[in-house]
């Protein structure tokens, strides 16, 4: 079968008023399947890490009030991440996210799976950080963080410029 993955593209917005990034992406899957792929650690490690990095779960309690910790590594170099599952619902996950290399910084992430019908689901992911500087430095750092950057309407603007 032909992979369908190239059909759906990530779209990104960064809120100009609060240091928040919003991202959407469609999937050929149900909200329940997407929840499982995010909450089951064996499924999660297979897709979360950047290509070429092995993700290893150290702690995982994907329930409301639970916590998570994993490391992504290659050739002895390891990057650790941790946070709490603040709320795990039927179609929504609220969690915190901290890169171990910057332990004072914490992002509040909300993932929401919108049922589009016909076996399709739209993932809405938003991430709120402490400051605009923090958000923009995250962008400049080049570190894989799970938080994506951009500005509202910038995609359209860039398209206009081409």
């Amino acid at each position, binding site marked *: 079968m032909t992979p369908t*993955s190239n059909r759906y593209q*990530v779209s990104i917005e960064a809120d100009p008023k609060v240091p928040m990034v919003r991202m959407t992406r469609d999937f*050929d899957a149900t909200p329940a399947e997407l929840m499982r792929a995010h909450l089951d650690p064996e499924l999660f490690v297979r897709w979360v890490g*950047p290509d070429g990095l092995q993700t290893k779960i150290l702690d995982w309690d994907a329930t409301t009030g639970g916590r998570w910790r994993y490391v992504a590594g290659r050739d002895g170099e390891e990057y650790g991440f941790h946070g709490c599952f603040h709320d795990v619902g039927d179609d929504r996950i609220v969690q915190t996210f901290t890169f171990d290399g910057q332990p004072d910084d914490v992002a509040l992430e909300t993932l929401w799976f919108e049922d589009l019908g016909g076996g399709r689901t739209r993932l809405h992911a938003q991430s709120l950080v402490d400051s605009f500087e923090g958000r923009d*430095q995250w962008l400049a750092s*080049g570190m894989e963080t799970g938080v994506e950057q*951009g500005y509202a309407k910038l995609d359209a603007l860039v398209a206009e410029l081409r």
Partner: protein
Amino acid sequence: MPDDQLSRIFAALADPTRRDMVARLAVGDATVGELADPYDVSVQAVSKHIKVLSDAGLVSQTKDAQRRPCHLEAEVFDLMTKWIERYRQQAQERYERLDVVLAEMRGDEIPTDHRQQGAAS
């Protein structure tokens, strides 16, 4: 590019009027008066917007000519959009991996996955 300049670029482009001006300047250089035309704002207000864009390094104004046309520093702008595109691409790659995991969860055939096929006898 230092982080604080990146922050200034983002702050400069957070304003819809300034984004419009950048789009206009991408077509070609324009004076402050020409930039003010489509908007219901004073030339002074446009000058303030141009100052924010200049401080961010996105726009320059020639000093010699009396018209002092504004010029978009396309390299700076491209650099920022490339950063954003790189991050978008990382997310795209991550979710394409998730597509494969989801397909396997449903039991769809994945061409590269021949594990334990026909092993039973």
